[in-house]
């Protein structure tokens, strides 16, 4: 059975697109046929992070409007055969995402894919509602700060009631917490919430903690999901996330302050 995963958040700029790209690539690398769909109409960017922006001919909206078929619009990743990208339009109106149209595209993709990753815009505007409506699983991306945690809580409430599963009285959407841009140093100084506090407030299954890392920006500038960067702690953390999502139990890493300096590097573990 295909799983439709929505990557969502209450606040913007918390790392949804970064996460969608990494998780989709991670699933595909492990042999699962995966497609990642950009629901952020008007702010096309998953294709940039995936490094395929110059190969876009048709987009998600074209498919919904019947101007192209799915196979014309999907772009196959050059690094991984099992990964496809369905980009969105920069120019069209987000109202073009109709529930019927989106449902039809997802149904068609469900015939050939194991995982459909939906990169949602922030909040609860139209595109976000469309992305969450059909979801089986939700990854709620949260930064370790009070406002982001609050907004995530609100998103979780909406996820619980505004979905196909809720309307059909099916088992509710499976919700996962992903804490990103975590900076142990700043947690220690009391400038950021500790992972335990976030988890206590949201009482949600913790899928992973992604450290704040410069490698995220350089990876996205290079058009490469950070999970492909073997030297990146954020990349490693995303690899763990994918394994945990697939059912492995792994301890959480990158929660402590890294020791810096020569002595730290010589003796540090």
């Amino acid at each position, binding site marked *: 059975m295909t799983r439709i995963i929505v990557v969502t958040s209450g606040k913007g700029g918390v790392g949804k697109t970064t996460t969608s790209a990494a998780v989709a690539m991670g699933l595909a690398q492990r042999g699962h046929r995966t497609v990642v769909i950009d629901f952020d109409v008007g702010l096309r960017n998953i294709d940039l992070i995936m490094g395929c922006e110059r190969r876009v001919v048709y987009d998600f909206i074209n498919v919904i409007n019947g101007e192209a078929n799915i196979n014309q619009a999907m772009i196959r990743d050059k690094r991984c055969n099992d990964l496809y990208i369905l980009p969105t339009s920069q120019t069209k109106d987000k109202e073009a995402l109709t529930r019927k149209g989106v449902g039809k595209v997802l149904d068609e993709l469900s015939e050939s894919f194991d995982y459909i990753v939906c990169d949602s815009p922030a909040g*609860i505007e139209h595109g976000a509602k469309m992305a969450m409506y059909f979801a089986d699983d939700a990854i709620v991306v949260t930064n370790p700060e009070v406002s982001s945690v609050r907004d995530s809580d609100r998103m979780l409430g909406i996820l619980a009631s505004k979905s196909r599963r809720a309307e059909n009285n099916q088992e509710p959407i499976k919700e996962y917490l992903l804490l990103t841009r975590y900076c142990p140093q700043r947690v220690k100084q009391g400038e950021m919430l500790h992972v335990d506090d976030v988890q206590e407030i949201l009482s949600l299954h913790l899928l992973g903690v992604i450290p704040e890392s410069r490698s995220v920006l350089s990876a996205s500038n290079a058009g490469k999901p950070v999970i492909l960067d073997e030297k990146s702690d954020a990349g490693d953390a995303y690899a763990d996330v994918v394994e945990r999502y697939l059912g492995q139990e792994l301890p959480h890493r990158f929660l402590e302050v890294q020791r810096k300096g020569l002595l730290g590097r010589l003796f540090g573990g």
Partner: protein
Amino acid sequence: MSVNLSEESAQVSAFELKGSTFTLPLLKLLVPDMELVSGQLAHRVEQAPDFFRNTPVIIDLQSLASGDTGVDFPLLVGLLRGYGMIPIGVRGGNRSQNDAAHAMELAILADGRPPKSERSSSSKTTERSSRPETTQETVVVSATAPAAGTEAGSRMITRPVRSGQRVYAPVGDLVILSQVSSGAEVLAAGNIHVYGALRGRALAGVKGNRECRIFCQDLQAELVSVAGNYRISEHIEDSKRGKPVQIYLKDDALIIDEL
């Protein structure tokens, strides 16, 4: 839930839609201070309790509409309900007040004159259709059938009640096996039991039953109320925070006792 009318069988008409006028009491707010409102309301209700019981009321915001006076609708609605009234809508508010009222599921009633700002007089159709896209969205958890082991009317909720959600048990008790997040609201005509942390608002005895109690495992509430007698977070002693407690009325005082 939306009903697809075209697919409904169209043989027997199940209802008629008709226009009708009612005269409803208007609560004209003159100050945004809910402490003050609460105190004076208590006095009024005392004088004529039957007049207020199960009475629908409209909240008039006209006096507060200029400037950016915020109205604490969750608190106000809780108060009114606590005194047995049924707040159904607002009129005369400004945009942000209307948004806040809408978030509490109050109807926004037109008051005869066009809203002052943000709308061109040429577009007649906007009046009804342009409900502003609020970032706040109140979700009322749909009425679940009573779970096994609960009396008819009582409700049992097994998942967290999240910020923006409101759960209301119009008759009987409300049992919540998980947490109530900050920004969430739980209301019951009867008792309220929360087996996780209570971080939001809990209003028991909203129809005026003074015998009702609130029980919770971990008190971190923003507001607790029994039959309209409420206490806000600021007035909850630190010594009771994070503790399992019961909350009840004794004479007119709200008592918080450790369990």
